[in-house]
């Protein structure tokens, strides 16, 4: 049976903030270009939807690009590429203005201008917000705006299993139709990956079920390096049990963090956040909370395990209802606490991956015509630690830039030899069909997932050390071997979600391999990567990006220089 081939000029994988922005950028630049947008979920289900706090861009007279740039560089613990950061801060206000034109309901000041709020690590108020559902409003505005363009053809619920590369040029993707169970080729002269991060490799995460690092794994297996994978952001305030995010905006609006003794430990003790206190950068605050827990000052009542409190009781009902209503909703619904009256139990939770597909400032990768943007990419804007509210703006700025660069590349590109692509696609279809039909297998998917989660938590948590990281390197390899024996119960073709879970698990294993390999080699503490055995930052030996390449004999780790600029690395104190 001939494999069906769909052809477009540009193929975009992922329908979230970055993917939609890339599609819109191409469509607006050239209406004659056909765009195929391939996503494993309908775009409004993309995880961009869950972002809460806001998106950063210079907006006020007391702010400028220099300040936003410096805050970001310092927040990144000097691992962010400064040319990328300079470009980003200049483009940010334009992108958020465009979102406003496309209907995003930004919260407003009395005079009708866009309101801004304080956010972690930002020296002034530059976080634009839409109450506390910014990701939801941005995603829906982008998706609804994208519907104007008939040349953006959506392929919803299609799971990309392989990148089709000819020599060193991208030709398209092989995608499994989740509903029908058939494989198709979606060919394009350029491909943009915008598939998000991989937080589901960890047991306790804000991330939704779909965040399994698919695009990162696709690029990795195709030979593109993953960069800075060891830097995993723990957001300080996640609800215990579920891991649901309580936005940084709660602290931006004046919330306090308290331990079991009721003290504001960020103020009473020296955790390096200085006067910023609760609005320090996320890596420092998460470390502070873990230290409080380890020192025995954690709250342990209730079913929630060890945690601390986020106290909003002094803000008053009116402020909470008007500025952070979703915080109240989530707290009542998932931990049964009304923040107007009681403190919310919280603890640090895996939230974001600073690392990802190694790209240049234009989103280009080492494969010609293949671009990446958003959380799945490492440009690198965020270096070793991301400041809150930079990532939504990052999706827009680099989604647009990658889209435009992909268009430029596509104009000059030639069509590949389709017959060899067809046979490659047929082989891939055969592989997936065999996996689906597999009746042997003793390893439960949930068992392997739990094993992966456990080893990632113990080896690559907030605090790391040689022995436990190395153990996780080894365990990931063991899980990779055990994966060969995975058990599939569902052999059906139509909407087989178990098959998708297996493919997602294999992606998570691959990115975990890169993550742990990079973590064990970086013998310093920088940003979110904190090692008990190497507690200080070592600019002498480690002021570089980590790269991890896939190899059949085992992952190959190397380095890449950081693009420095006007800001020299200095001690990171607030």
């Amino acid at each position, binding site marked *: 049976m001939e494999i069906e081939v769909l052809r477009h000029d540009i193929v975009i994988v992922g329908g979230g903030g970055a993917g939609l922005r890339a599609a819109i950028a191409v469509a607006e630049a050239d209406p004659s270009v056909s765009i195929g947008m391939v996503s494993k*979920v*309908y775009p*409004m*289900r*993309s*995880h961009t*939807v*869950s972002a809460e706090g806001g998106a950063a861009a210079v907006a006020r007279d007391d702010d400028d690009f220099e300040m936003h740039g410096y805050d970001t560089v310092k927040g990144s613990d000097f691992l962010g590429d400064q040319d990328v950061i300079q470009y980003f801060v200049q483009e940010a*206000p*334009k*992108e*958020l*203005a*465009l979102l*406003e*034109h*496309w*209907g995003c*309901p930004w*919260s*407003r*000041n*009395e*005079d*009708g*201008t*866009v309101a801004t709020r304080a956010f972690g690590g930002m020296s002034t108020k530059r976080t634009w917000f839409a109450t506390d*559902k910014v990701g*939801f*409003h941005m995603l*829906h505005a982008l998706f*609804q*705006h994208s*519907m*104007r363009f008939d040349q953006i053809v959506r392929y*919803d619920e299609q799971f990309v299993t392989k990148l089709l590369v000819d020599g060193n040029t991208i030709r398209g993707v092989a995608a499994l139709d989740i*509903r029908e169970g058939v494989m198709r080729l979606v060919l394009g002269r350029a491909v943009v990956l915008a598939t998000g991060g991989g937080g589901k490799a960890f047991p306790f995460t804000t991330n*939704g*079920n779909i965040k399994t690092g698919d695009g990162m794994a696709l690029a990795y297996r195709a030979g593109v390096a993953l960069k800075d994978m060891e830097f995993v952001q723990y957001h300080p305030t996640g609800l215990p*049990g*579920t891991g*649901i995010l309580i936005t940084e905006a709660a602290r931006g609006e004046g919330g306090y963090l308290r331990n079991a003794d009721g003290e504001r430990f960020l103020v009473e003790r020296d955790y390096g956040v200085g006067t910023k206190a609760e609005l320090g950068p996320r890596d420092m605050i998460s470390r502070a909370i873990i230290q409080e827990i380890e020192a025995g000052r954690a709250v342990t009542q209730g*079913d929630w395990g060890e945690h601390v409190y986020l106290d909003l009781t002094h803000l008053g009902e009116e402020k909470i209802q008007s500025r952070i209503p979703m915080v109240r*909703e*989530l707290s009542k*619904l*998932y931990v049964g606490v009304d923040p107007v009256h009681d403190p919310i139990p919280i603890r640090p939770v895996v939230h974001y991956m600073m690392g990802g597909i190694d790209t240049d400032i234009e989103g280009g990768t080492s494969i010609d015509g293949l671009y990446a943007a958003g959380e799945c990419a490492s440009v690198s804007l965020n270096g070793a630690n991301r400041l809150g509210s930079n990532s939504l703006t990052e999706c827009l700025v680099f989604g647009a830039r990658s889209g435009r660069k992909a268009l430029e590349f596509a104009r000059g590109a030639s069509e590949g030899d389709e017959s060899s692509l067809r046979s490659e696609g047929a082989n891939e279809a055969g592989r997936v069909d065999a996996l689906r039909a597999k009746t042997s297998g003793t390893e439960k*998917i*949930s068992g392997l997932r739990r094993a992966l989660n456990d080893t990632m938590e113990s080896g690559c948590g907030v605090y790391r050390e040689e022995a436990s990281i190395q153990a996780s390197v080894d365990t990931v390899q063991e899980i990779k071997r055990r994966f060969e024996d995975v*058990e*599939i*119960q*569902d052999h*059906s*073709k*139509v*909407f*087989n*979600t*178990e098959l998708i879970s297996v493919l997602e698990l294999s992606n998570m294993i691959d990115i975990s391999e890169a993550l742990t390999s990079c973590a064990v080699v970086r013998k310093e503490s920088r940003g979110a990567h904190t090692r008990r055995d190497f507690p200080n930052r070592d600019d002498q030996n480690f002021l570089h990006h980590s790269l991890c390449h896939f190899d059949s004999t085992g992952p190959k780790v190397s380095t890449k220089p950081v693009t420095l600029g006007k800001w020299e690395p200095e001690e990171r104190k607030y």
Partner: protein
Amino acid sequence: MSDPPKKTFVITRFDPDVDEVPKTQSYEIAVDPDWKVLDAVNYIKDEVDGTLSHRWSCRMAVCGSCGMMVNGEPRLTCKDSVSQYGDTVEITPLSNFPVIRDLVVDMDGFMDKFKKVKPWIIRAKELAAEDGPVRQSPEELEEFKQFSMCINCMLCYSACPVVSNEPEFLGPAAIALGHRYNVDSRDEGASERNAIFRGEGTVFSCSFANECSEVCPKNVDPAAAVNQAKFNAVIDWATGLVLPSGEKE
């Protein structure tokens, strides 16, 4: 410590390659009192029967994926506590939708209606990024904000008796979204959308059952939107009679 309580989940199963019609399957499992219904369904899929297919993602009531009928009512299962139910819980796919597999319904009919209402800002003259954000007062924002909260979970379509019987009807969420844009001070396309509201799938098919608003998990109040849209559609039609079309804004 006593054993955790057990509940029986009676879940619709349907594989079009094997089943003529949907059937049910029962699963008895120990239930954690903190669970939402989605947690129970996930547990069944992960530990008991890997062949059960359902959609879910964010588990925090914002992505809209996990809508199902629980004991005959459309619910967002990540929001719905399992402890409120008795010993037997029936879970079926959303009513009024064709069913693809198990608890998964065909959403493309909804996507069609969604696009029909032109859910984007319509302006006579497009703005550039350099123009900066347009001003909008907090009062103007309040006028449409509620209607912009829709997560597209489609529970309202499941509850609406008109959707059950009139395939052309645009439906609560689509009309609420179109109305959201009509009321947004930045939009200039109200006349276009009001014509759509009077056309095929007309808003006037709504008989104000109010079920959509009863089941909406985000308090969007689509019934308010649809009925406000009726009023506006009439005013728009009347002004269209009086003013020649060239003078309409």
